[in-house]
């Protein structure tokens, strides 16, 4: 934010980038976010004054930028981050939503939460420790959750004398591990979050580094191609029936496109019934649209009166999702109790509610080595495993790698109502 006249028009047309940050305890994650906010002038005077006073009271000899993100009392007391915190900042180029997720093993479920909607993940590595189990775990989660871009930040370079050798060795280590991940776009940046090296401004301490700063990467990474604009999928969320004289026969199907593009006149199929019809109109707040694409929320009107309800899906006649009750998937387990073989769980998939039974546990992943543990695999909290489920009604789905919305669902414990599993559907 500057003193110049703020360009309202260009702000209106900014792109939104969602990113998540991951690292182990004390990797300096909160400090990095504080640094990004501070150096991009997104911290307000009263916030800064607040954390300055707190730092001073605690006898810390610098203003602890990590205090900006630690919102809960227990977090400030223990100096750790417990829950996902969302932060917002913008530069003249983009607007950013940060999901700041805790690094502790017991809170990995929050990392999964943050990663599920992110375009990019920042993986933080402490230059003194190199690649550790948490690094591998977080990278694997980012990869599994379909994040297309990784920014691997080797932090605390100031504590290793800004050594190129240390940096190179860590990059080599990481690349060896990352060759087994699905992420294609991985950038490495040596930084010091505490001092600001290569976060927003280029570091004078590391002239040997020829890459870009972290903020520059965040501002320029190409994300417009990340969304699937090929497979039109419209899960019906809510049926709008005004029941008044003016809109007597109005029957609109409200929802948000998961992917693809739809236009009036398109021949569509209604799943699971399989009826075909034509789109009569696409509306938003009473205005007629010539097209709708993901992630727009719209209301669709159809030529024919067909019985359609929440959980059904409108798709193009010639491009349909899979329909099956037997689903192969990777699950990130978040429940206190381990996943039960033959256990029954409630599920939420797009706008559909159903139940499932766990038919088979194929293996559990060893996070460090990516080896598959097939002997009596028990999937407990923070474990990732491959399982097969059978659902009570057929799911309309795509592989997660093709579609992050129709390819994902959550499992819910029917006794406690708590979300216990994040499910990623395989091909």
């Amino acid at each position: 934010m500057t003193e110049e006249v703020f360009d309202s028009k260009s702000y209106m047309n900014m792109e939104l980038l969602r990113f998540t940050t991951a690292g182990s305890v004390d990797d300096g994650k909160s400090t990095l976010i504080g640094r990004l906010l501070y150096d991009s002038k997104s911290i307000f005077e009263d916030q800064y004054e607040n954390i300055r006073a707190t730092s001073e009271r605690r006898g810390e000899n610098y203003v602890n930028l990590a205090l900006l993100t630690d919102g809960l009392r227990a977090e400030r007391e223990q100096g750790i981050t417990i829950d996902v915190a969302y932060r917002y900042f913008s530069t003249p180029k983009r607007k950013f939503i940060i999901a700041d997720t805790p690094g502790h093993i017991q809170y990995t479920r929050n990392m999964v939460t943050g990663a599920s909607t992110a375009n990019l993940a920042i993986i933080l590595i402490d230059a003194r420790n190199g690649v550790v189990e948490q690094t591998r775990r977080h990278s694997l989660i980012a990869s599994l959750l379909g994040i297309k871009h990784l920014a691997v930040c080797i932090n605390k370079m100031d504590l290793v004398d800004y050594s190129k050798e240390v940096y190179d060795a860590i990059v080599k280590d990481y690349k060896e591990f990352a060759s087994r991940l699905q992420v294609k776009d991985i950038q490495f940046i040596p930084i010091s979050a505490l001092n600001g090296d290569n976060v927003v401004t280029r570091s004078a301490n590391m002239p040997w580094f020829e890459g870009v700063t972290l903020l520059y990467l965040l501002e320029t990474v190409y994300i417009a191609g990340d969304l699937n604009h090929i497979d039109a999928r419209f899960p019906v969320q809510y049926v709008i029936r005004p029941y008044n004289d003016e809109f007597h026969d109005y029957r609109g199907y409200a929802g948000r496109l998961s992917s693809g593009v739809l236009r009036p006149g398109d021949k569509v199929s209604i799943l699971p019934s399989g009826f075909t019809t034509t789109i009569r109109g696409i509306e938003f707040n009473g205005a007629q649209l010539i097209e709708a694409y993901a992630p727009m929320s719209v209301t669709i009107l159809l030529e024919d009166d067909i019985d359609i309800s929440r959980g059904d899906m409108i798709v193009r006649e010639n491009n349909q999702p899979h329909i099956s009750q037997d689903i192969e998937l990777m699950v990130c387990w978040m429940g206190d109790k381990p996943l039960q073989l033959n256990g029954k769980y409630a599920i939420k998939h797009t706008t559909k509610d159903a139940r499932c039974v766990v038919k088979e546990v194929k293996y559990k992943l060893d996070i460090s080595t990516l080896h598959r543990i097939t002997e009596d695999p028990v999937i407990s909290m923070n474990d990732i495993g491959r399982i097969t489920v059978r659902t009570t009604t057929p799911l309309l789905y795509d592989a997660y790698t093709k579609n992050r919305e129709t390819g994902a669902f959550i499992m819910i414990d029917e006794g406690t109502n708590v979300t216990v599993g994040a499910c990623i559907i395989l091909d």
Partner: protein
Amino acid sequence: MSFTLNHLKTLESEAIYVIREAAAQFQNPAILFSGGKDSIAVTYLARKAFYPAPIPFPLVHVDTGHNFQETLDYRDRLVAKLGVKLIVASVQDTIDQARVTEEKGYNASRIRLQTTTLLDAIEKYKFDCCLGGARRDEEKARAKERFFSHRDEFGQWDPKNQRPELWNLFNGRKHVGENFRVFPISNWTELDVWQYMGMEKIDLPTLYFSHRREVFDRDGVLLAASPYIPMKPNETATEQTVRFRTIGDITSTGATLSSAATVDEIIQEVASTRITERGGRADDKRSESSMEDRKKEGYF
């Protein structure tokens, strides 16, 4: 190939998705309406979400009795314009029923008392979901909120034990007596809200725009001179050109010196300002975790 949505349209689409999800997953939702711009935004978004059908839930105003008259006038106009049902839950009634005791002293406020009134209203009308205009950028405890925020049978928030919220899948399952708070504009910033108001040409309470008003300074917060706030002997009110960045109960809503008289001028001001929006909220200044404490008790 330009299938891109700008960030404001993306946020609008997300908010509408969340509102429709609340309507689909709950039996009896309500919108918590304070008269502030955030709850106004949620109300307009709800209008869009169900158009041409009316908003399928009532507005609930938790009325501390310490209001700016402008807020009440605006509320009544909006309710008439949108054809929604209004339910007023009065803190004064809660006090009269001896369910809560009024705070004493110069900084006495009814902010905390609102919680009891709200929880009573939830019970009386059997609301299982209250939609609110809280934003994560407002305050540090709110930065940890979910879109679908679970409350136990005492209306309490348990920040350390929140349900994971994955993708856009919102888990609104609950036991009898529990309820949810749903925050459709979680991801909006103050600037986003103003940009949206400008883009949509939404009419707003006049308090948000620059005007002359008698105010006095207390602990760095400019408060409106009003019969609801007793002034200390050393405090004097002077007429200043001010506007309010947030609108709530009169006893805790701070004014800022401002000449911004239009939405565009406010956008300019917000974009260049160096103080957070809630910096003027006396209710947040009570302690470092006053919002967290209030939320745990069942506050918005």
